[in-house]
């Protein structure tokens, strides 16, 4: 199962309207689609994702999940954060099962599924290890297993590979793509890497900053499965060029815009960027 999402003129202001984080955001996400939110730091892409997760609320407009307005975190939602958020006192397996325990589900019933997920990510041998004994890549793999444990219809990923080294990041891109092909789950993926967005996505919502809005939606019409080498093909690099031009072409989206930077940036914008 997968869920469709509709954003209708979504806006989010902070500090009684003094800071506009998001403005006039409207787009649809089809069931089973992989959509990336791509943009520079501080463009509000994480804020938007938190609104979709029901953790934050838009101050204007609505977000509909299968035609129902999101007011609290939806049932069939999985989330992966930039940091793995594994707890130190539990083994990898128990960390994955924590998602079930939060939901009050039977641990024992979900144990085989948790083991199967760890197996798929090559972590079966480390199921009884603690997070602090493992590498960053392994930890983030476990975080993805935890998000997938309760069979989400929609998976939200907030720069999940942002803290990893380039090689681990490539590995995880390939693994994520493989997993997405075997499930019908809708994925919304936040990133500031153009390459990563093109490689993974069906469509990319390119965002600009201050106020954050969607500048353009790019459909990535590259065939699947996509091998990593595809990133060097002309078709791929054309997408990179086009998106880069979209981001850089817009005045105001540039980081050094004197008119906008004369106003000191409030600290909350920094918090939202993370």
């Amino acid at each position: 199962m997968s869920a469709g999402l509709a954003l209708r003129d979504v806006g989010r202001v902070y500090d009684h309207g003094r800071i506009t984080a998001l403005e006039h955001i409207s787009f649809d996400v089809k069931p089973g689609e992989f959509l990336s939110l791509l943009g520079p730091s501080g463009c509000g892409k994480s804020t938007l994702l938190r609104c979709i997760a029901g953790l934050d609320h838009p101050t204007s407009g609505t977000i509909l999940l299968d035609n129902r307005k999101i007011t609290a975190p939806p049932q069939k939602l999985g989330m992966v954060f930039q940091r793995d958020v594994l707890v130190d006192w539990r083994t990898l397996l128990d960390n994955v099962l924590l998602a079930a325990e939060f939901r009050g589900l039977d641990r024992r019933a979900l144990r085989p599924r948790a083991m199967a997920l760890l197996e798929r990510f090559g972590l079966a041998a480390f199921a009884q290890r603690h997070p602090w004994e493992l590498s960053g890549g392994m930890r983030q793999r476990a975080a993805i297993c935890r998000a997938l444990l309760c069979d989400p219809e929609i998976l939200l990923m907030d720069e999940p590979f942002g803290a990893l080294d380039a090689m681990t990041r490539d590995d995880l891109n390939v693994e994520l793509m493989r997993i997405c092909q075997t499930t019908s789950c809708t994925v919304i993926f936040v990133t500031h890497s153009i390459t990563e967005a093109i490689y993974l996505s069906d469509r990319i919502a390119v965002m600009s900053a201050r106020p954050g809005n969607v500048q353009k939606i790019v459909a990535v019409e590259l065939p699947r499965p996509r091998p990593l080498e595809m990133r060097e093909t002309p078709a791929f690099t054309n997408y990179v060029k086009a998106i880069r031009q979209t981001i850089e072409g817009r005045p105001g989206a540039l980081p050094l815009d004197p008119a906008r930077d004369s106003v000191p940036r409030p600290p909350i914008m920094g918090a939202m960027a993370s």
Partner: protein
Amino acid sequence: MRARFLDWAIMALIVFAIVTIWQVAVIVFQPPVILLPAPSRIWLDFWEAPSYFLRNTFYTFATTIVGFALSVVLGIVLAVAIISSRILDRVITTLLVLLNSLPKVALAPLFVIWMGLGMEPKVAIAVMLAIFVTVADTVMGFRSVDPDAIALARVNQASPWRILIKLRLPSALPALFVSMKVATSLALVGAIVGEFVGGSTGLGFVILTAQGQFDTSRVFVALVLLGLLGSILYHIVELAERLFVPWHVSQRNG
């Protein structure tokens, strides 16, 4: 395991060295017994009436343990109340700060008037002394949970109760154990203060009567027993810490 044995050996050696220096100093400088008795003299004094000393030590031990346990349990309950409601936070914090600002020694006679000469006023004073640090550290522990972990719990439909049990409590454990180490000694202080003020049992009472008779050696017996008692309590908490939070950075080997 070997490293652990070595730790204990070093500790014993340090104690032995201090006792030896003390003994030698008394032999060399010959201070009056009323000022500083030799360790050998203190030891002999203990052996004159071991059951008397042990009975009183046990009484102080029981008071301290009950006071300590109550302050930990009450402390956790109050900490949960503080983090769960802004109004409760205001009320409890105001009362605790007020209570903590009063010198507990000054309150002790009042507790004796209210509760009599039994164990109750001593336990009450021990709790009053030990509870503040427990509440403060536990609240801090509860509040230092990773905000992303809370977000993760909420995305997974966790109720506030489940967030408390599955996230807040385990992540507050390291802070709780630190506060418990401090609380053992504070509870011991509370017990002794209570015994000074009223009653006729406990190491505090032993010290008070020995002082009345200028029996310095007996004061020292009680002090040594108090030191042992405090150290044992501390190490029990430390042992529990190793068992319950082996995952914490401070407990990992190597």
